[in-house]
Protein backbone atom coordinates (compact mmCIF):
# COMPACT_ATOMS: atom_id res chain seq x y z
CA UNK A 1 0.00 0.00 0.00
CA UNK A 2 2.92 2.22 0.81
CA UNK A 3 4.10 1.83 -2.79
CA UNK A 4 0.73 2.82 -4.24
CA UNK A 5 0.55 5.87 -2.00
CA UNK A 6 4.07 6.83 -3.07
CA UNK A 7 3.16 6.52 -6.73
CA UNK A 8 0.45 9.17 -6.40
CA UNK A 9 2.47 11.44 -4.15
CA UNK A 10 3.51 14.45 -6.22
CA UNK A 11 3.72 16.82 -3.24
CA UNK A 12 7.45 17.48 -3.58
CA UNK A 13 7.15 18.74 -7.16
CA UNK A 14 7.06 22.50 -7.77
CA UNK A 15 3.63 23.82 -8.75
CA UNK A 16 4.90 25.16 -12.07
CA UNK A 17 6.09 21.71 -13.13
CA UNK A 18 2.82 20.08 -12.18
CA UNK A 19 0.86 22.70 -14.12
CA UNK A 20 2.95 22.12 -17.25
CA UNK A 21 2.66 18.35 -16.80
CA UNK A 22 -1.13 18.67 -16.44
CA UNK A 23 -1.38 20.76 -19.59
CA UNK A 24 0.82 18.29 -21.46
CA UNK A 25 -1.33 15.41 -20.31
CA UNK A 26 -4.49 17.20 -21.44
CA UNK A 27 -2.90 17.79 -24.83
CA UNK A 28 -1.97 14.11 -25.13
CA UNK A 29 -5.49 13.02 -24.16
CA UNK A 30 -7.05 15.32 -26.75
CA UNK A 31 -4.47 14.86 -29.49
CA UNK A 32 -6.37 12.21 -31.52
CA UNK A 33 -9.42 14.48 -31.55
CA UNK A 34 -7.49 17.51 -32.76
CA UNK A 35 -6.87 17.80 -36.51
CA UNK A 36 -3.60 16.06 -37.36
CA UNK A 37 -1.87 14.29 -40.23
CA UNK A 38 -1.25 10.55 -40.06
CA UNK A 39 2.47 11.35 -40.03
CA UNK A 40 2.02 13.48 -36.90
CA UNK A 41 0.12 10.59 -35.33
CA UNK A 42 2.92 8.14 -36.14
CA UNK A 43 5.42 10.61 -34.67
CA UNK A 44 3.34 10.93 -31.50
CA UNK A 45 3.29 7.15 -31.10
CA UNK A 46 7.06 7.09 -31.51
CA UNK A 47 7.29 9.86 -28.94
CA UNK A 48 5.31 7.86 -26.39
CA UNK A 49 7.34 4.72 -27.06
CA UNK A 50 10.64 6.50 -26.67
CA UNK A 51 9.44 8.33 -23.56
CA UNK A 52 8.73 4.95 -22.03
CA UNK A 53 12.08 3.52 -23.13
CA UNK A 54 13.77 6.59 -21.70
CA UNK A 55 11.84 6.42 -18.43
CA UNK A 56 13.02 2.85 -18.02
CA UNK A 57 16.60 3.73 -18.83
CA UNK A 58 16.45 6.68 -16.46
CA UNK A 59 15.84 4.39 -13.47
CA UNK A 60 19.27 2.83 -13.75
CA UNK A 61 21.11 5.33 -15.94
CA UNK A 62 19.73 8.54 -14.50
CA UNK A 63 18.96 7.88 -10.84
CA UNK A 64 21.68 5.24 -10.53
CA UNK A 65 24.28 6.88 -12.76
CA UNK A 66 25.09 3.57 -14.49
CA UNK A 67 25.40 4.31 -18.21
CA UNK A 68 23.65 1.36 -19.80
CA UNK A 69 24.04 1.13 -23.58
CA UNK A 70 22.52 -2.31 -24.05
CA UNK A 71 18.82 -1.74 -23.61
CA UNK A 72 18.03 -2.82 -27.20
CA UNK A 73 18.54 -6.46 -26.29
CA UNK A 74 15.50 -6.29 -24.01
CA UNK A 75 13.44 -4.55 -26.67
CA UNK A 76 14.36 -7.57 -28.78
CA UNK A 77 13.43 -10.13 -26.13
CA UNK A 78 10.04 -8.50 -25.57
CA UNK A 79 9.27 -8.05 -29.26
CA UNK A 80 10.41 -11.51 -30.28
CA UNK A 81 8.55 -13.26 -27.48
CA UNK A 82 5.30 -11.63 -28.53
CA UNK A 83 5.91 -12.21 -32.24
CA UNK A 84 7.02 -15.83 -31.96
CA UNK A 85 4.20 -16.79 -29.61
CA UNK A 86 1.63 -15.16 -31.85
CA UNK A 87 2.94 -16.71 -35.06
CA UNK A 88 3.49 -20.21 -33.73
CA UNK A 89 0.85 -20.70 -31.07
CA UNK A 90 -1.68 -17.89 -31.60
CA UNK A 91 -1.00 -16.49 -28.14
CA UNK A 92 -2.66 -13.09 -27.60
CA UNK A 93 -0.64 -9.98 -26.80
CA UNK A 94 -1.94 -9.79 -23.23
CA UNK A 95 -0.51 -13.21 -22.39
CA UNK A 96 2.72 -13.10 -24.37
CA UNK A 97 3.75 -9.68 -23.06
CA UNK A 98 4.02 -10.74 -19.40
CA UNK A 99 5.93 -13.81 -20.54
CA UNK A 100 8.30 -11.63 -22.59
CA UNK A 101 8.65 -9.36 -19.60
CA UNK A 102 9.52 -12.30 -17.36
CA UNK A 103 12.08 -13.60 -19.85
CA UNK A 104 13.68 -10.17 -20.22
CA UNK A 105 13.85 -9.57 -16.48
CA UNK A 106 15.23 -13.08 -15.95
CA UNK A 107 17.92 -12.43 -18.53
CA UNK A 108 18.68 -9.06 -16.96
CA UNK A 109 19.39 -10.76 -13.64
CA UNK A 110 21.68 -13.29 -15.32
CA UNK A 111 23.83 -10.72 -17.09
CA UNK A 112 23.28 -7.95 -14.54
CA UNK A 113 25.07 -9.95 -11.88
CA UNK A 114 28.46 -9.97 -13.64
CA UNK A 115 27.88 -6.61 -15.39
CA UNK A 116 27.56 -4.61 -12.21
CA UNK A 117 30.97 -5.68 -11.02
CA UNK A 118 32.14 -3.08 -13.58
CA UNK A 119 32.02 0.68 -13.36
CA UNK A 120 32.07 3.70 -15.66
CA UNK A 121 33.28 3.14 -19.19
CA UNK A 122 33.94 -0.51 -18.55
CA UNK A 123 30.33 -1.03 -17.63
CA UNK A 124 29.03 1.00 -20.58
CA UNK A 125 31.05 -0.88 -23.18
CA UNK A 126 30.29 -4.26 -21.60
CA UNK A 127 26.55 -3.56 -21.92
CA UNK A 128 27.08 -2.87 -25.63
CA UNK A 129 28.89 -6.17 -25.99
CA UNK A 130 26.13 -8.21 -24.33
CA UNK A 131 23.52 -6.60 -26.54
CA UNK A 132 25.49 -7.26 -29.71
CA UNK A 133 26.08 -10.89 -28.78
CA UNK A 134 22.36 -11.41 -28.42
CA UNK A 135 21.67 -9.61 -31.68
CA UNK A 136 24.19 -11.77 -33.55
CA UNK A 137 22.62 -14.90 -32.11
CA UNK A 138 19.15 -13.80 -33.21
CA UNK A 139 20.45 -13.09 -36.69
CA UNK A 140 21.44 -16.71 -37.25
CA UNK A 141 18.68 -18.38 -35.23
CA UNK A 142 16.14 -19.80 -37.67
CA UNK A 143 13.49 -20.24 -34.98
CA UNK A 144 13.11 -16.46 -34.81
CA UNK A 145 13.47 -15.86 -38.52
CA UNK A 146 17.18 -15.11 -38.66
CA UNK A 147 18.40 -11.82 -40.09
CA UNK A 148 15.21 -11.33 -42.09
CA UNK A 149 13.18 -11.19 -38.91
CA UNK A 150 9.52 -11.99 -38.47
CA UNK A 151 6.34 -10.81 -40.11
CA UNK A 152 3.24 -10.86 -37.94
CA UNK A 153 0.13 -12.33 -39.60
CA UNK A 154 -3.02 -10.26 -39.89
CA UNK A 155 -5.66 -11.76 -37.67
CA UNK A 156 -8.59 -9.84 -39.14
CA UNK A 157 -11.67 -8.99 -37.10
CA UNK A 158 -10.69 -5.31 -36.54
CA UNK A 159 -10.48 -3.79 -34.03
CA UNK A 160 -8.79 -6.86 -32.67
CA UNK A 161 -8.09 -6.22 -28.99
CA UNK A 162 -6.77 -9.70 -28.38
CA UNK A 163 -3.84 -9.41 -30.77
CA UNK A 164 -3.61 -5.63 -30.69
CA UNK A 165 -4.33 -5.13 -34.37
CA UNK A 166 -6.21 -2.02 -35.39
CA UNK A 167 -6.86 -0.14 -38.59
CA UNK A 168 -6.76 3.28 -36.94
CA UNK A 169 -3.69 4.52 -35.15
CA UNK A 170 -5.57 6.15 -32.27
CA UNK A 171 -6.20 2.75 -30.67
CA UNK A 172 -2.46 2.24 -30.44
CA UNK A 173 -2.08 5.80 -29.21
CA UNK A 174 -4.45 5.37 -26.28
CA UNK A 175 -3.03 2.00 -25.28
CA UNK A 176 0.42 3.56 -25.21
CA UNK A 177 -0.89 6.56 -23.32
CA UNK A 178 -2.22 4.18 -20.69
CA UNK A 179 1.22 2.57 -20.42
CA UNK A 180 2.77 6.03 -20.32
CA UNK A 181 0.69 7.09 -17.31
CA UNK A 182 1.38 3.78 -15.60
CA UNK A 183 5.06 4.22 -16.31
CA UNK A 184 5.07 7.71 -14.84
CA UNK A 185 3.36 6.50 -11.69
CA UNK A 186 5.89 3.72 -11.27
CA UNK A 187 8.78 6.17 -11.69
CA UNK A 188 7.18 8.45 -9.13
CA UNK A 189 6.80 5.54 -6.73
CA UNK A 190 10.40 4.57 -7.38
CA UNK A 191 11.59 8.07 -6.52
CA UNK A 192 10.08 7.79 -3.06
CA UNK A 193 10.98 4.17 -2.52
CA UNK A 194 13.83 2.74 -0.51
CA UNK A 195 15.48 1.52 -3.71
CA UNK A 196 15.21 4.98 -5.25
CA UNK A 197 17.02 6.62 -2.34
CA UNK A 198 19.63 3.86 -2.31
CA UNK A 199 20.39 4.37 -5.99
CA UNK A 200 20.75 8.11 -5.66
CA UNK A 201 23.11 7.56 -2.75
CA UNK A 202 25.14 5.16 -4.89
CA UNK A 203 25.29 7.67 -7.72
CA UNK A 204 26.54 10.42 -5.42
CA UNK A 205 29.19 8.34 -3.74
CA UNK A 206 29.26 4.59 -3.91
CA UNK A 207 31.78 4.10 -1.13
CA UNK A 208 29.80 6.20 1.31
CA UNK A 209 26.61 4.40 0.31
CA UNK A 210 28.28 1.07 0.99
CA UNK A 211 29.57 2.21 4.33
CA UNK A 212 25.98 3.08 5.27
CA UNK A 213 25.07 -0.54 4.77
CA UNK A 214 23.59 -0.36 1.27
CA UNK A 215 24.22 -3.45 -0.82
CA UNK A 216 25.20 -1.43 -3.89
CA UNK A 217 25.60 -4.41 -6.21
CA UNK A 218 22.19 -5.83 -5.44
CA UNK A 219 20.44 -2.43 -5.54
CA UNK A 220 21.80 -1.78 -9.01
CA UNK A 221 20.66 -5.18 -10.24
CA UNK A 222 17.15 -4.57 -8.93
CA UNK A 223 16.91 -1.16 -10.59
CA UNK A 224 18.33 -2.64 -13.79
CA UNK A 225 15.60 -5.29 -13.78
CA UNK A 226 12.93 -2.65 -13.24
CA UNK A 227 14.32 -0.62 -16.14
CA UNK A 228 14.29 -3.76 -18.26
CA UNK A 229 10.60 -4.30 -17.54
CA UNK A 230 9.69 -0.98 -19.19
CA UNK A 231 11.76 -1.68 -22.26
CA UNK A 232 10.48 -5.23 -22.72
CA UNK A 233 6.80 -4.22 -22.56
CA UNK A 234 7.27 -1.46 -25.12
CA UNK A 235 9.20 -3.96 -27.25
CA UNK A 236 6.21 -6.30 -27.24
CA UNK A 237 4.01 -3.39 -28.21
CA UNK A 238 6.42 -2.43 -30.97
CA UNK A 239 6.10 -5.90 -32.52
CA UNK A 240 2.30 -5.60 -32.70
CA UNK A 241 2.37 -2.01 -33.90
CA UNK A 242 5.00 -2.53 -36.61
CA UNK A 243 3.91 -6.00 -37.82
CA UNK A 244 7.51 -6.60 -38.76
CA UNK A 245 10.58 -7.00 -36.60
CA UNK A 246 14.19 -7.70 -37.49
CA UNK A 247 17.32 -7.78 -35.36
CA UNK A 248 18.95 -4.87 -37.20
CA UNK A 249 15.98 -2.66 -36.36
CA UNK A 250 15.20 -3.44 -32.77
CA UNK A 251 18.43 -4.79 -31.31
CA UNK A 252 20.99 -2.47 -32.84
CA UNK A 253 23.48 -0.32 -30.96
CA UNK A 254 21.83 2.74 -32.50
CA UNK A 255 18.58 1.97 -30.69
CA UNK A 256 20.38 1.39 -27.39
CA UNK A 257 22.12 4.72 -27.65
CA UNK A 258 18.98 6.49 -28.77
CA UNK A 259 17.14 5.19 -25.70
CA UNK A 260 19.82 6.50 -23.41
CA UNK A 261 19.96 9.77 -25.33
CA UNK A 262 16.31 10.57 -24.56
CA UNK A 263 17.08 10.74 -20.87
CA UNK A 264 20.47 12.35 -21.29
CA UNK A 265 19.21 15.14 -23.52
CA UNK A 266 16.21 15.89 -21.35
CA UNK A 267 18.12 15.59 -18.12
CA UNK A 268 19.18 12.26 -16.63
CA UNK A 269 17.96 11.58 -13.12
CA UNK A 270 14.94 13.83 -13.26
CA UNK A 271 11.43 12.49 -13.67
CA UNK A 272 10.55 14.68 -16.65
CA UNK A 273 13.94 14.34 -18.35
CA UNK A 274 13.22 11.42 -20.68
CA UNK A 275 9.87 12.92 -21.69
CA UNK A 276 11.44 16.29 -22.50
CA UNK A 277 14.19 14.50 -24.40
CA UNK A 278 11.77 12.38 -26.42
CA UNK A 279 9.58 15.38 -27.19
CA UNK A 280 12.60 17.10 -28.78
CA UNK A 281 14.55 14.24 -30.33
CA UNK A 282 11.74 12.12 -31.78
CA UNK A 283 9.97 14.85 -33.79
CA UNK A 284 13.33 16.25 -34.84
CA UNK A 285 14.53 12.91 -36.18
CA UNK A 286 11.24 12.05 -37.76
CA UNK A 287 10.70 15.40 -39.52
CA UNK A 288 14.33 15.71 -40.56
CA UNK A 289 14.04 12.25 -42.10
CA UNK A 290 10.77 13.13 -43.79
CA UNK A 291 12.11 16.39 -45.14
CA UNK A 292 15.57 15.32 -46.29
CA UNK A 293 15.69 11.53 -46.15
CA UNK A 294 13.55 10.94 -49.21
CA UNK A 295 15.30 13.37 -51.51
CA UNK A 296 17.53 11.83 -54.14
CA UNK A 297 21.23 12.53 -53.73
CA UNK A 298 20.83 13.67 -50.15
CA UNK A 299 20.85 10.28 -48.42
CA UNK A 300 22.46 10.69 -45.02
CA UNK A 301 21.99 14.44 -44.72
CA UNK A 302 19.24 14.06 -42.12
CA UNK A 303 21.37 11.83 -39.89
CA UNK A 304 24.36 14.06 -40.50
CA UNK A 305 22.48 17.04 -39.10
CA UNK A 306 21.14 14.85 -36.33
CA UNK A 307 24.67 13.79 -35.37
CA UNK A 308 25.78 17.40 -35.47
CA UNK A 309 22.98 18.47 -33.16
CA UNK A 310 23.79 15.67 -30.71
CA UNK A 311 27.44 16.72 -30.65
CA UNK A 312 26.45 20.30 -30.04
CA UNK A 313 24.10 19.44 -27.18
CA UNK A 314 26.60 17.13 -25.52
CA UNK A 315 29.29 19.81 -25.73
CA UNK A 316 27.19 22.84 -24.80
CA UNK A 317 24.76 21.48 -22.24
CA UNK A 318 26.00 18.18 -20.83
CA UNK A 319 23.32 18.15 -18.13
CA UNK A 320 20.41 18.25 -20.52
CA UNK A 321 17.44 20.57 -20.91
CA UNK A 322 16.26 19.95 -17.38
CA UNK A 323 19.71 21.01 -16.23
CA UNK A 324 18.98 24.48 -17.64
CA UNK A 325 15.69 24.60 -15.72
CA UNK A 326 17.45 23.66 -12.50
CA UNK A 327 20.20 26.21 -13.06
CA UNK A 328 17.65 28.98 -13.63
CA UNK A 329 15.77 27.94 -10.52
CA UNK A 330 18.92 27.87 -8.41
CA UNK A 331 19.83 31.39 -9.56
CA UNK A 332 16.38 32.71 -8.71
CA UNK A 333 16.59 31.30 -5.19
CA UNK A 334 19.71 33.32 -4.41
Amino acid at each position, binding site marked *: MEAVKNAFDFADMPKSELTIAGLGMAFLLLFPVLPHSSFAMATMIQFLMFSLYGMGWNLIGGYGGQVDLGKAQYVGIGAYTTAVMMIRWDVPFWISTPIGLALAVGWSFIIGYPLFRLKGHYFA*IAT*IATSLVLKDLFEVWDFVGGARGLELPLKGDFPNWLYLQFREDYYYFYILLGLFVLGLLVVNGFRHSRLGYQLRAIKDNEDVAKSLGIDAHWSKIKAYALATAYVAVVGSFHACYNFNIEPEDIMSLDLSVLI*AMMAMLGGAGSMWGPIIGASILVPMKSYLGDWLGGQAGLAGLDLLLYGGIIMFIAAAQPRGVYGIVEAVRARRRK
Partner: protein
Amino acid sequence: MEDLGIQVLKSVVSGLLMGLVFALVALGLTVIFGVMDIVNFAHGEFLMIGMYTTLLTSPLLGIDPVLTLPLAGLVGAALGVLSYYGLIRFLLRGPMIAQLFGTFGLMLFLRNLALLTMGSEPRILHKGWLVGKSFIVGPGVVLESTKLAAAVLSIVSFALVWWLINRTKVGRALTATSLDAEGARYMGISTQKMNALAWAVGGASVAIAGGLLVNFWPVEPGVGLLFTMIAFATVALGGFGSVRGAFVAGVLIGLIVNIPPIWDAMLRMIDAAGLADLQIHSFKYTMVYAIYFLIMVIKPQGLFGWKQ
Protein backbone atom coordinates in the same frame (compact mmCIF):
# COMPACT_ATOMS: atom_id res chain seq x y z
CA MET B 1 44.01 -35.59 -41.16
CA GLU B 2 46.33 -33.71 -43.46
CA ASP B 3 43.43 -31.52 -44.49
CA LEU B 4 42.90 -30.41 -40.94
CA GLY B 5 46.58 -29.65 -40.47
CA ILE B 6 46.55 -27.35 -43.48
CA GLN B 7 43.35 -25.73 -42.26
CA VAL B 8 44.93 -25.01 -38.90
CA LEU B 9 48.06 -23.59 -40.48
CA LYS B 10 46.03 -21.42 -42.83
CA SER B 11 43.88 -20.12 -40.01
CA VAL B 12 46.87 -19.33 -37.85
CA VAL B 13 48.64 -17.49 -40.66
CA SER B 14 45.66 -15.41 -41.71
CA GLY B 15 44.80 -14.85 -38.06
CA LEU B 16 48.28 -13.48 -37.36
CA LEU B 17 48.18 -11.14 -40.34
CA MET B 18 44.69 -9.88 -39.57
CA GLY B 19 45.56 -9.59 -35.91
CA LEU B 20 48.42 -7.19 -36.63
CA VAL B 21 46.01 -4.89 -38.45
CA PHE B 22 43.51 -5.14 -35.58
CA ALA B 23 46.34 -4.19 -33.25
CA LEU B 24 47.05 -1.04 -35.24
CA VAL B 25 43.35 -0.15 -35.25
CA ALA B 26 43.25 -0.53 -31.47
CA LEU B 27 46.48 1.39 -30.90
CA GLY B 28 44.86 4.80 -31.43
CA LEU B 29 42.02 3.98 -29.07
CA THR B 30 44.32 2.85 -26.31
CA VAL B 31 46.59 5.91 -26.60
CA ILE B 32 43.61 8.26 -26.35
CA PHE B 33 42.08 6.31 -23.50
CA GLY B 34 45.36 6.17 -21.63
CA VAL B 35 45.86 9.92 -21.73
CA MET B 36 42.36 11.15 -20.98
CA ASP B 37 39.97 8.38 -20.00
CA ILE B 38 37.62 8.94 -22.88
CA VAL B 39 36.05 6.33 -25.11
CA ASN B 40 35.84 7.34 -28.75
CA PHE B 41 32.83 5.87 -30.53
CA ALA B 42 33.92 7.48 -33.77
CA HIS B 43 37.13 5.46 -33.88
CA GLY B 44 35.88 3.17 -36.65
CA GLU B 45 34.82 6.22 -38.62
CA PHE B 46 38.38 7.54 -38.50
CA LEU B 47 39.38 4.20 -39.99
CA MET B 48 36.74 4.58 -42.69
CA ILE B 49 38.08 8.01 -43.58
CA GLY B 50 41.59 6.59 -43.80
CA MET B 51 40.28 3.93 -46.18
CA TYR B 52 38.59 6.52 -48.39
CA THR B 53 41.68 8.72 -48.33
CA THR B 54 43.85 5.99 -49.81
CA LEU B 55 41.14 4.85 -52.19
CA LEU B 56 40.57 8.33 -53.62
CA THR B 57 43.98 9.98 -53.53
CA SER B 58 45.88 7.15 -55.17
CA PRO B 59 44.26 7.54 -58.63
CA LEU B 60 44.01 11.29 -58.14
CA LEU B 61 47.73 11.77 -57.51
CA GLY B 62 48.67 8.93 -59.80
CA ILE B 63 50.78 7.15 -57.18
CA ASP B 64 50.58 3.70 -55.75
CA PRO B 65 48.17 3.17 -52.81
CA VAL B 66 51.09 2.24 -50.52
CA LEU B 67 52.63 5.66 -51.04
CA THR B 68 49.44 7.42 -49.96
CA LEU B 69 49.75 6.00 -46.44
CA PRO B 70 51.59 9.02 -45.01
CA LEU B 71 48.84 11.18 -46.46
CA ALA B 72 46.20 8.99 -44.81
CA GLY B 73 48.14 9.40 -41.59
CA LEU B 74 48.16 13.18 -41.98
CA VAL B 75 44.44 13.28 -42.68
CA GLY B 76 43.81 11.10 -39.62
CA ALA B 77 46.01 13.28 -37.42
CA ALA B 78 44.30 16.44 -38.65
CA LEU B 79 40.91 14.89 -38.03
CA GLY B 80 41.98 13.86 -34.54
CA VAL B 81 43.23 17.34 -33.64
CA LEU B 82 40.14 18.94 -35.14
CA SER B 83 37.88 16.60 -33.15
CA TYR B 84 39.79 17.40 -30.00
CA TYR B 85 39.68 21.17 -30.28
CA GLY B 86 36.20 21.29 -31.83
CA LEU B 87 34.41 18.79 -29.61
CA ILE B 88 36.27 16.66 -27.09
CA ARG B 89 37.70 19.66 -25.23
CA PHE B 90 34.15 20.72 -24.36
CA LEU B 91 32.98 17.20 -23.57
CA LEU B 92 35.70 16.73 -20.96
CA ARG B 93 33.95 19.30 -18.75
CA GLY B 94 30.76 17.24 -18.62
CA PRO B 95 29.90 13.91 -17.00
CA MET B 96 30.99 10.64 -18.62
CA ILE B 97 27.64 10.16 -20.29
CA ALA B 98 28.00 13.42 -22.22
CA GLN B 99 31.35 12.18 -23.53
CA LEU B 100 29.83 8.96 -24.79
CA PHE B 101 27.06 10.82 -26.60
CA GLY B 102 29.33 13.48 -27.98
CA THR B 103 31.55 10.92 -29.69
CA PHE B 104 28.46 8.98 -30.75
CA GLY B 105 27.21 12.17 -32.42
CA LEU B 106 30.60 12.50 -34.10
CA MET B 107 30.28 8.94 -35.34
CA LEU B 108 26.82 9.61 -36.83
CA PHE B 109 28.11 12.83 -38.36
CA LEU B 110 31.17 11.30 -40.04
CA ARG B 111 29.37 8.16 -41.18
CA ASN B 112 26.60 10.12 -42.84
CA LEU B 113 29.00 12.66 -44.25
CA ALA B 114 30.62 9.73 -46.05
CA LEU B 115 27.23 8.42 -47.13
CA LEU B 116 26.31 11.82 -48.50
CA THR B 117 29.52 12.37 -50.42
CA MET B 118 30.59 8.83 -51.32
CA GLY B 119 27.35 6.92 -51.70
CA SER B 120 26.59 3.61 -50.08
CA GLU B 121 28.13 1.09 -52.49
CA PRO B 122 31.16 -0.81 -51.16
CA ARG B 123 34.42 -0.01 -52.94
CA ILE B 124 37.85 -1.57 -52.92
CA LEU B 125 41.23 -0.91 -54.53
CA HIS B 126 41.55 -2.70 -57.85
CA LYS B 127 45.10 -1.95 -58.79
CA GLY B 128 48.41 -1.26 -57.15
CA TRP B 129 51.67 -3.02 -56.46
CA LEU B 130 50.10 -5.32 -53.95
CA VAL B 131 46.69 -6.15 -55.32
CA GLY B 132 46.24 -9.62 -56.76
CA LYS B 133 49.73 -10.92 -55.95
CA SER B 134 50.36 -13.79 -53.62
CA PHE B 135 53.06 -16.20 -52.51
CA ILE B 136 52.58 -19.90 -52.07
CA VAL B 137 54.34 -20.78 -48.86
CA GLY B 138 53.41 -24.37 -48.43
CA PRO B 139 50.87 -26.87 -49.67
CA GLY B 140 47.56 -25.02 -49.66
CA VAL B 141 48.89 -22.06 -47.68
CA VAL B 142 48.78 -18.89 -49.74
CA LEU B 143 50.02 -15.53 -48.49
CA GLU B 144 48.26 -12.64 -50.13
CA SER B 145 50.71 -9.82 -50.54
CA THR B 146 48.10 -7.24 -49.52
CA LYS B 147 47.65 -8.83 -46.13
CA LEU B 148 51.34 -9.50 -45.69
CA ALA B 149 52.21 -5.88 -46.44
CA ALA B 150 49.45 -4.67 -44.14
CA ALA B 151 50.86 -6.79 -41.33
CA VAL B 152 54.45 -5.68 -41.89
CA LEU B 153 53.57 -2.00 -42.21
CA SER B 154 51.41 -2.17 -39.13
CA ILE B 155 54.41 -3.49 -37.19
CA VAL B 156 56.40 -0.55 -38.55
CA SER B 157 53.70 1.91 -37.48
CA PHE B 158 53.59 0.30 -34.08
CA ALA B 159 57.32 0.65 -33.72
CA LEU B 160 57.09 4.32 -34.68
CA VAL B 161 54.44 5.03 -32.06
CA TRP B 162 56.33 3.02 -29.46
CA TRP B 163 59.46 5.03 -30.25
CA LEU B 164 57.53 8.29 -30.07
CA ILE B 165 56.08 7.47 -26.67
CA ASN B 166 59.08 5.88 -25.04
CA ARG B 167 62.13 7.50 -26.61
CA THR B 168 61.25 11.12 -27.26
CA LYS B 169 60.83 14.06 -24.92
CA VAL B 170 57.31 14.78 -26.11
CA GLY B 171 56.44 11.11 -25.62
CA ARG B 172 57.61 11.28 -22.01
CA ALA B 173 55.47 14.35 -21.53
CA LEU B 174 52.53 12.39 -22.91
CA THR B 175 53.17 9.54 -20.48
CA ALA B 176 53.48 12.01 -17.63
CA THR B 177 50.10 13.50 -18.48
CA SER B 178 48.43 10.11 -18.61
CA LEU B 179 49.92 9.14 -15.24
CA ASP B 180 49.05 12.39 -13.48
CA ALA B 181 47.73 15.28 -15.53
CA GLU B 182 47.84 17.74 -12.65
CA GLY B 183 51.37 16.87 -11.66
CA ALA B 184 52.48 17.16 -15.26
CA ARG B 185 50.87 20.58 -15.48
CA TYR B 186 52.96 21.80 -12.54
CA MET B 187 56.02 20.69 -14.50
CA GLY B 188 54.97 22.97 -17.35
CA ILE B 189 53.42 20.34 -19.57
CA SER B 190 50.27 21.69 -21.19
CA THR B 191 47.47 19.17 -20.74
CA GLN B 192 45.60 20.64 -23.71
CA LYS B 193 48.56 20.11 -26.02
CA MET B 194 49.18 16.60 -24.78
CA ASN B 195 45.53 15.69 -25.23
CA ALA B 196 45.62 17.06 -28.76
CA LEU B 197 48.80 15.09 -29.40
CA ALA B 198 47.14 11.89 -28.22
CA TRP B 199 44.27 12.53 -30.63
CA ALA B 200 46.72 13.25 -33.44
CA VAL B 201 48.64 10.01 -32.81
CA GLY B 202 45.40 8.06 -32.38
CA GLY B 203 43.84 9.50 -35.53
CA ALA B 204 46.99 8.97 -37.61
CA SER B 205 47.54 5.35 -36.60
CA VAL B 206 43.95 4.31 -37.20
CA ALA B 207 43.80 6.13 -40.54
CA ILE B 208 46.98 4.35 -41.66
CA ALA B 209 45.37 1.08 -40.63
CA GLY B 210 42.46 2.10 -42.87
CA GLY B 211 44.79 2.77 -45.78
CA LEU B 212 46.28 -0.70 -45.37
CA LEU B 213 42.92 -2.35 -44.93
CA VAL B 214 41.35 -0.96 -48.09
CA ASN B 215 43.67 -3.16 -50.17
CA PHE B 216 41.63 -6.20 -49.27
CA TRP B 217 38.58 -5.02 -47.34
CA PRO B 218 35.81 -3.09 -49.16
CA VAL B 219 35.02 0.32 -47.75
CA GLU B 220 31.50 1.66 -47.29
CA PRO B 221 30.19 4.36 -44.93
CA GLY B 222 29.02 1.82 -42.31
CA VAL B 223 32.27 -0.15 -42.15
CA GLY B 224 33.39 1.53 -38.93
CA LEU B 225 31.16 -0.02 -36.27
CA LEU B 226 32.58 -3.53 -36.57
CA PHE B 227 36.10 -2.17 -36.20
CA THR B 228 35.12 0.10 -33.32
CA MET B 229 33.80 -2.92 -31.47
CA ILE B 230 36.85 -5.02 -32.31
CA ALA B 231 39.05 -2.17 -31.13
CA PHE B 232 37.11 -1.93 -27.86
CA ALA B 233 37.54 -5.66 -27.38
CA THR B 234 41.24 -5.47 -28.22
CA VAL B 235 41.86 -2.59 -25.86
CA ALA B 236 39.94 -4.32 -23.09
CA LEU B 237 41.88 -7.53 -23.56
CA GLY B 238 45.22 -5.76 -23.64
CA GLY B 239 44.37 -3.37 -20.86
CA PHE B 240 43.04 0.16 -21.28
CA GLY B 241 45.89 2.53 -22.01
CA SER B 242 48.55 -0.10 -22.68
CA VAL B 243 50.37 0.05 -26.04
CA ARG B 244 52.07 -3.31 -25.55
CA GLY B 245 48.70 -4.76 -24.54
CA ALA B 246 47.05 -3.51 -27.74
CA PHE B 247 49.70 -5.27 -29.80
CA VAL B 248 49.44 -8.64 -28.07
CA ALA B 249 45.66 -8.47 -27.80
CA GLY B 250 45.24 -7.50 -31.46
CA VAL B 251 47.12 -10.59 -32.55
CA LEU B 252 45.16 -12.76 -30.12
CA ILE B 253 41.86 -11.42 -31.42
CA GLY B 254 42.97 -11.96 -35.01
CA LEU B 255 43.66 -15.59 -34.11
CA ILE B 256 40.34 -15.95 -32.27
CA VAL B 257 38.40 -14.60 -35.24
CA ASN B 258 40.13 -17.12 -37.46
CA ILE B 259 39.66 -20.14 -35.23
CA PRO B 260 36.06 -20.87 -36.29
CA PRO B 261 37.14 -22.00 -39.79
CA ILE B 262 39.05 -24.76 -38.04
CA TRP B 263 35.85 -25.92 -36.40
CA ASP B 264 34.10 -25.79 -39.73
CA ALA B 265 36.80 -27.98 -41.21
CA MET B 266 36.40 -30.43 -38.34
CA LEU B 267 32.67 -30.45 -38.78
CA ARG B 268 33.09 -31.20 -42.46
CA MET B 269 35.33 -34.09 -41.52
CA ILE B 270 32.81 -35.48 -39.10
CA ASP B 271 30.17 -34.76 -41.73
CA ALA B 272 27.44 -35.47 -39.27
CA ALA B 273 24.09 -34.58 -40.72
CA GLY B 274 22.81 -31.33 -39.32
CA LEU B 275 26.00 -30.48 -37.53
CA ALA B 276 27.65 -29.09 -40.62
CA ASP B 277 24.74 -26.71 -41.07
CA LEU B 278 25.59 -24.93 -37.85
CA GLN B 279 27.90 -22.53 -39.67
CA ILE B 280 30.04 -21.68 -36.71
CA HIS B 281 32.10 -19.24 -38.75
CA SER B 282 29.20 -16.80 -38.85
CA PHE B 283 29.75 -16.37 -35.12
CA LYS B 284 33.28 -15.14 -35.38
CA TYR B 285 32.61 -11.56 -34.37
CA THR B 286 30.05 -12.68 -31.80
CA MET B 287 32.92 -14.50 -30.17
CA VAL B 288 34.93 -11.30 -30.03
CA TYR B 289 32.10 -9.57 -28.17
CA ALA B 290 31.60 -12.52 -25.87
CA ILE B 291 35.29 -12.68 -25.07
CA TYR B 292 35.30 -8.95 -24.42
CA PHE B 293 32.49 -9.42 -21.93
CA LEU B 294 34.24 -12.30 -20.19
CA ILE B 295 37.53 -10.42 -19.91
CA MET B 296 35.82 -7.38 -18.50
CA VAL B 297 34.14 -9.44 -15.83
CA ILE B 298 37.02 -11.72 -14.93
CA LYS B 299 40.00 -9.39 -15.31
CA PRO B 300 38.91 -5.79 -15.95
CA GLN B 301 42.47 -4.48 -16.07
CA GLY B 302 43.25 -6.70 -19.06
CA LEU B 303 46.56 -8.39 -19.75
CA PHE B 304 48.86 -5.38 -19.36
CA GLY B 305 46.51 -2.71 -18.04
CA TRP B 306 47.53 -0.17 -15.48
CA LYS B 307 44.43 2.05 -15.50
CA GLN B 308 41.43 0.86 -13.55
